[in-house]
């Protein structure tokens, strides 16, 4: 019997080539995971979002669980750029895995200057978390509107030559339009999506369960919704879509790739199974072998949509 050759797991996100399509979602990854998995097996690193200003984060409690899901309002605690460059970056330097840095700022100008400052050797790409409140627009997230998405992407593009990924929020009416706005201003990829704005109330105290009152919903419960967003966005743009939302198994990752994702991010699943990402990578390999898929990239956008037949309405007239 001829042994089937190992499937090719590599994917391309613009000019970046990844050894496989699996990477962490921002905010769910840190150096400590090195004690759980071999960092050289990941497709990419994605850091916690960093900001220029020092941020302590939100009041506690910062998380609350609901069936199949988690609501968080951590509040992007950040020690600023110098700390990141001096203390965090060296930790990832020895690995042969691209480092994607997630950034956030309260203004488009702030995003641009942060991206410029971080366009240094050792950083392979920028993920702009434009799902955070924009102080120039009454606290609405940049990615809630096409105009602010276009404006911030334009400034980011002018500020850096690094691969630029723009992370979108699902808390808006028309994600494909927003994705198109990001593409139109030069984004190299869109990440679909961030968490869903949500809330939980404690029935003993009648108080919100989170110190911040509202938070972002993640976990398996949101997967079918984000999958739909990925399907729609990937049909609206030519740039790659990175899928992110409730992925905890290789099957989930395959589903996302079939819907149109070129790579996937794993977040909340890591809180339950710390080795989730490497388990998913192994599972993707097995899936490709079993289904005779030579390259995992062949799965991208592979969902089979058949034109439905015209509904048969003969039974209507057949009624007595």
């Amino acid at each position, binding site marked *: 019997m001829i042994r089937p050759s190992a499937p090719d797991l590599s994917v391309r996100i613009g000019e970046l080539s990844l050894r496989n399509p699996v990477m962490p979602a921002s*905010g*769910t*990854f*840190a150096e*400590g*995971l*090195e*004690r*759980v*998995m*071999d*960092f*050289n*097996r990941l497709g990419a690193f994605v850091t916690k979002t960093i900001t220029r200003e020092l941020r*302590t*984060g939100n009041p*506690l*409690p*910062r*998380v609350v*669980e*609901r*069936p*199949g*899901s*988690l609501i*968080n309002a*951590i509040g992007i*605690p950040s020690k600023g750029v110098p700390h990141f460059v001096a203390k965090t970056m060296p*930790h*990832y*330097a*020895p*690995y*042969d895995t691209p480092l994607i840095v997630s950034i956030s700022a309260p203004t488009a100008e702030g995003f641009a200057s942060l991206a410029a400052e971080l366009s240094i050797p050792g950083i392979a790409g920028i993920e702009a978390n434009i799902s955070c409140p924009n102080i120039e627009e009454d606290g609405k997230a940049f990615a809630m509107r096409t105009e602010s998405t276009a404006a911030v992407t334009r400034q980011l593009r002018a500020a850096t030559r690094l691969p630029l990924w723009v992370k979108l929020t699902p808390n808006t009416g028309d994600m494909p339009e927003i994705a198109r706005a990001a593409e139109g201003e030069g984004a190299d990829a869109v990440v679909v999506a961030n968490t869903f704005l949500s809330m939980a109330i404690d029935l003993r105290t009648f108080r919100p369960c989170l110190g911040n009152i509202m938070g972002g919903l993640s*976990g398996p419960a949101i997967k079918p919704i984000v999958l739909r967003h990925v399907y729609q966005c990937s049909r609206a743009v030519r740039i790659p879509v990175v899928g992110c939302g409730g992925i905890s198994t290789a099957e989930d990752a395959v589903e996302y790739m079939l819907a149109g994702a070129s790579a996937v991010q794993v977040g909340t699943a*890591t*809180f*339950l*199974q*710390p*080795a989730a990402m490497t388990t998913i990578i192994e599972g993707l390999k097995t899936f490709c072998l079993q289904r005779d898929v030579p390259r995992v990239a062949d799965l991208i956008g592979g969902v089979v949509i058949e034109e439905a037949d015209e509904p048969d309405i003969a039974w209507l007239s057949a009624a007595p």
Partner: protein
Amino acid sequence: MSDLLDRPPAPGPAAGAQSRAAWKGSIVAELAEVVSHQAVNVEYRHLVVRCSAEAASARPGQFFQLLCPHPPGEQPFLRRPMSLYGADPEKRHVAFLYKVTGAGTRGLDTLRPGDRLDIMGPLGVGFTLDPNWRSIVAVGRGAGLATLAPLAQAAKRNGTHVTALFSARRPELLVSVDLFHAHGADVIAVTDSESTSGPANVERILRRLIQDGQSDAFFTCGSSRLMRVQQRLAKEFAIPGQVAMEQQMACGVGLCYCCVRDFNIDGEIVSRRVCWDGPVFDLMEALP
């Protein structure tokens, strides 16, 4: 930082980059088999599981993240942090002592011998015992006693005498007194129902222990009121101390920053992750 001293050796980045085959994880998530599971009193359960050598090497003050089974009608989503109650590297056992309080512990309560439980650990920075300490005082209340129990065992091996001051609502709710006795500890019990658990009485008892030379170091868990008493005395008599802190957790491995607390580090307020920087902290740095 104390990271380097207190943690088992982590695979350094260089090691990881140079040799893939050499990489080995030190945090293990695994399915452990329930060996025994018993009610200690109306509130507390004692759970023993058989596990890997890595998990059974857990040290006093460390904790595990348990993926609890779903009890009828409830779906706990996150793992639950549970401090180590005992570890036996030879039998490859770890033990937990817990109070049934919520969806997670109600799920744990459904486990029977032979069942499997997904445990992840050992996690966090545990207690440190100085070989020069001849006598230490451990003060605990409620579930805090469970966290201090393996310390008594380690102290015995270290040749250090332990005086355990236990606080509970009622005498019948005191747990693990026998276990502390078995490790050669003296146990002093104070309770709310006997009106002996107030800070003034606890302070009086601790002052006497200090006077008698029984307190080279303080250890505590489970009550910020009792912690404050110890902090005051630790300052007055220059006694070193350690406290095991509790906080709601999600990931348990320092990723999510949900379990942060403020600490006073040389007069500066610093935020630390209880799961990763702790759960054991310097007594004088802890804020209630």
